[in-house]
């Protein structure tokens, strides 16, 4: 099956810093999503981005489908950005989303 690798596994940031999270995948995809899981366990969908670039406030994401990677940018980080960020991909029109292992982000005041 498709392999999904996220890096780094852990990230500690000071409030106000910028960061980049990466998701590499081993096959062509037509569905790629980024999720944020808050410290209470709730997963929130951040972006549906199988290709191109999107922005939502301080977060933005870019997927370069031909090179099989996606990047999530966090700018001016806040303590509420803490949690685990997951990348999930699907390699075909109807199949299962495959999740990466996640990046644990801690933003300190």
């Amino acid at each position, binding site marked *: 099956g498709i392999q999904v690798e996220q890096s780094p596994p852990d990230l500690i940031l000071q409030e106000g810093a910028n960061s980049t999270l990466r998701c590499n995948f081993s096959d062509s995809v037509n569905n790629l999503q980024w999720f944020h899981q808050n410290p209470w366990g*709730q*997963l929130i*969908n951040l972006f549906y981005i199988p290709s191109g670039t999107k922005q939502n406030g301080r977060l933005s994401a870019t997927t370069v489908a031909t090179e099989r990677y996606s990047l999530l940018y966090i700018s001016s980080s806040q303590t509420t950005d803490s949690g685990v960020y*997951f990348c999930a991909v699907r390699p075909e*029109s*109807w199949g*299962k*989303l495959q*999740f990466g*292992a996640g990046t644990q982000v801690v933003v300190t005041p």
Partner: protein
Amino acid sequence: DVKVTQSSRYLVKRTGEKVFLECVQDMDHENMFWYRQDPGLGLRLIYFSYDVKMKEKGDIPEGYSVSREKKERFSLILESASTNQTSMYLCASSPQRGGGQETQYFGPGTRLLVL
């Protein structure tokens, strides 16, 4: 807003008990999913359903079964709970769209401890 609810946030059961986890979504979504989440392993799909009374195995179906009698409700059943089923269980739903372009919406999760 899409709302996905799960019957319990925390659950403690004994080995051998039958356990029911329920998930309800209010957006008339066709697809529903059950995942388990363990540290370092991300989310792994247990079962999913794309219609009432339909179910498909995911990556780790052993020891679990599911039921979908109504469109809005998807139940996960542990027939005989074991300690290695201690985990966080997450339910999700998504609309049925062509090309696989649907977004999944998650419930708050159930932390299950099997003693």
